[in-house]
């Protein structure tokens, strides 16, 4: 894995907000093709800020984010061609149908020649009910919206995927289905960065798991390492302890 170029890379990344809060503190991160990296941490630990920095929603104070080798700050439009994003609450255009939303975001993602059947195929793949394809999104449940959100990421077919607490608030079945889709995307070679509070699912899906505290990455374990360690205990211990630099 390490002889490949990382799709998502944070190089000594820091972000201090105007109010003085240091949200991300010298973060170094490399996520490779076919890898799921789960970022754990309490609220305010810096997980979402990290994702926002990758999306160039906010500029870093120091350091650099790279997507597919492209500096996100220097060339954000080029960088965003290689990354998809699914937020905690996927919010789409309520007056549009699922297909119309998918069509719009597919075109924004550069997929301009898709047929209705292509959209249907993607929505079937993420297990969205057929009857919802031509329904207005405003009446969708959160699970349905998350599925549609991941279908937007699927149809864009970018090598990097950023997921900001995507299973938060989903019922167990919907969360399980969501993770199955992630597993498929991983097998397709996508580099996935997922922030989450769900320790169990992080352990289940993550090839690597990192714990953030006060902007710092205080712990990182591989799937293999976690076979012999209790992630819950590690997490609780790190939450209690002073920040450590690894």
């Amino acid at each position, binding site marked *: 894995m390490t002889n490949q170029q990382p799709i998502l890379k944070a190089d000594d990344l820091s972000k201090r907000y105007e109010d003085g809060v240091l949200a991300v503190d010298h973060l170094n991160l490399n996520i490779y093709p076919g890898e799921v990296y789960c970022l754990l941490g309490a609220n305010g630990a810096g997980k979402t800020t990290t994702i926002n920095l990758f*999306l160039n929603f*906010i500029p870093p104070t120091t350091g650099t984010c790279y997507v597919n080798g492209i500096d996100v700050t220097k060339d954000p439009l080029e960088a*965003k061609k290689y990354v998809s994003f699914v937020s905690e609450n996927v919010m789409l255009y309520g007056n549009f149908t699922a297909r119309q939303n998918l069509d719009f*975001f597919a075109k*924004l993602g550069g997929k301009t020649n898709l047929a209705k059947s292509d959209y249907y195929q993607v929505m079937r793949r993420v297990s969205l009910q057929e009857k919802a394809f031509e329904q207005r999104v405003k009446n969708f449940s959160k699970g349905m919206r998350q599925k549609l959100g991941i279908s937007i990421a699927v149809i864009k077919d970018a090598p990097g995927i950023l997921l900001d607490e995507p299973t938060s608030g989903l019922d167990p079945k919907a969360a399980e289905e969501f993770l199955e889709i992630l597993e498929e995307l991983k097998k397709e070679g996508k580099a996935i960065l997922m922030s989450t509070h769900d320790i169990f699912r992080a352990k289940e899906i993550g090839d690597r798991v990192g714990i953030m505290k006060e902007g710092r990455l205080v712990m990182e374990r591989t799937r293999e390492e976690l076979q012999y360690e209790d992630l819950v205990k590690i997490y609780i211990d790190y939450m209690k302890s002073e920040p450590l630099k690894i």
Partner: protein
Amino acid sequence: MMRTLFIKEVRDALSSRRFWVILALCLILIPLGVEVSLKDYQTRLQNYREAVRIYREETKQVQDVLYKEGAKAFAPPAQLSFLSLGLELVLPNVAETPAGRADPPVVMRLGNNESRDNLYEFFTGPLDLVFVVAVVMSLLAVILTYGAISGEKELGTLGQVLSNSVPRAKIILAKATANGLVLVIPFLLSLILSLTLVELQGGLPSAAGAWTSIGLGALVSVLLVGVFFNLGLFVSSLTKQAVPALVTLLLVWVFLYGVYPRLAAAAAQILHPVKSDALVALEKSQIKHDIEKARDAELETVAQTMPRDFKSEAFKAGQKKQQEIHDRYQAKLEAGWKAIDRDVEARRSTRDALTADIARLSPVSSFVRPMAELARSGWLESGQFRREVRQYEEVLNREIFDKQRIIRMPRGGMISNEADPKAPAPVFAYVPTPEDDVVRDILPDVALLILFNLVFFAGAFVTFLRYDPR
């Protein structure tokens, strides 16, 4: 990319209730307003024609002017008052000399013969295009745009869009063009429908100038709607939530529409006060009284030296001297009155210009004024009527009233008028303000409206480029 964003904005707008409300309001209010205004104009036109007919029938000769009706001048109602009723109901549209014998120089009294049976119309204002655009369309522009950016941010869709390789400039341009068209097309369609309906009833003017005015009126209307539209985009890009954006916009709207123009008028009157017409009339009367008193004293002195024999040379010399005294005081009186008129006109003109300049900082004022001028129901037309009346006054004085002769004798005197009583009475023919003058007059306001549009859009554009979509 731009096409995708544009189509999405149009589709989003068309699938919302707001668009259909806009369309319904335009299709109802604009034709209704035009129709009501047209009926009102036709009634006032009929009244004007009737008044002119009756006056001309009764005032055919100079003697009718001198001894019966006096002279009158009427301004026709503004044919394009469906654009803006403007100042039609308050500014002078009729001028008259005192009925019966009047001492020269005669000054025509200005008045307004428009009346409203239903006083509620004064209370609420007319349903002309100015009302529909300044109130309804500007509010709709605000309602259409307050959530354009902050609403999408609040909803989360903006983040989803910006996570793609989409230039922000294209997003804001697509929002501006698509939503702008969604707002302007129903407006223009409704206006065209209204004009077609009016044309079918034969109510539209045939003069090319009138069509220029209608076209410019539509342009100025679109510019005002654009100002509030771009202001909405700007405020939306400055806020993070839709409701604060809406509240801010409504407060700004109230200030620009209702508060600031009133403050401007009050400020101008305080900075540059102008005497009222009634006070000016009193001052003139005082001058006349003083001059006549002095004149009469001199005439009396001469009269005391005159013999009773009308045929004597001494009487004729006295009579000549009296005429000279009379003419001298007449000239003095005319000069005094003209000085007052000049002063008042100059002060009024300065005050009006000051009011307009202060008020122009509100785009609503920059819209209302040119609309009134284009409809020929504003200050320009009022000034034109005043000037025409002054010219008519000069004709009346030169041809009739200045020919009055006064002979003062020790115990009384006599007044005669040397004008031919059977001669046709001078007729007042009103010439409206030339089209070029109107266009020249409204150019600063049009330029300001364009500037407001550019400034607010530039503000929205620049702010959006740095907008935090989280």
